[in-house]
């Protein structure tokens, strides 16, 4: 197995996730795309852990999983709050930050 096959797979997943974050309008879908990005990072960590023969990558992959769980929890809570206030979770309607 090449190092690159994993890394490029991760890169592809990452870019698909980026596309999702940009293209999606529904907040839940954006959160799902972010999960794709986080997973691609994990693949990178584990590929390098194997390549370098070190355990550090595993440790950080686990940390990322935990952080992702926290992020989804808070993210969905935010989505719920937005939904409750505006009856919609379409992100393009949330343009209070317009300059």
């Amino acid at each position, binding site marked *: 197995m090449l190092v690159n096959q994993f890394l490029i797979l991760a890169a592809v997943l990452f870019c698909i996730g980026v596309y999702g974050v940009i293209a999606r309008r529904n907040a839940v879908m954006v959160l799902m795309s972010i999960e794709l990005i986080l997973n691609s990072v994990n693949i990178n960590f584990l590929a390098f852990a194997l390549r370098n023969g070190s355990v*550090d990558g595993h440790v950080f992959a686990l940390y990322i999983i935990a952080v992702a769980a926290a992020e989804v929890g808070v993210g969905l809570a935010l989505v719920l709050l937005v939904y409750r206030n505006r009856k919609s979770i379409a992100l393009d309607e949330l343009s209070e930050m317009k300059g």
Partner: protein
Amino acid sequence: MVAQNIAFGIIAVIMVVGALRVVTVNNVVHAALWLVLVLAGAAAQYILLAAEFVAVTQVLVYIGAVMVLFLFGTMLTRAQLGKEKQLNNPTWYFGIPASLLLLGVMILALTSSFGDEKLPTDSELVSTQAISDQIFGPYLLPFWALSFVLLAAVIGAIVLARKD
């Protein structure tokens, strides 16, 4: 090694297709199910990468907990369970050049720096004990910080989602 490469290829194709479906499909619940496929594929890749424990955690946390959260989120926000036309932004096409540019740059960087380098084949599975030795040894402080983050997330989620 051939078997592993074949396995990698199949899983990778499934993952890429699944990921593409996640970001293109017009149904939130379907997207969540495609995401399950991608995450399961990722877990399989972790096993190929000799990361048993991380793979198991991936299944437990992601497929078990996070996906349930997503489905709950979909349900509670009363997103349409069927097809929905408004899932994409009006300016969704911005995403294509941005992500393709990013992909091009990354592939350029990866091929130029790793080329044909092979992964070691004789490596054993990383034992859970080794991981815990690392977590509770040199990386104890990030672990504490992480515990704090989780606590804050729990409290934050309750505060945000509470009705009053």
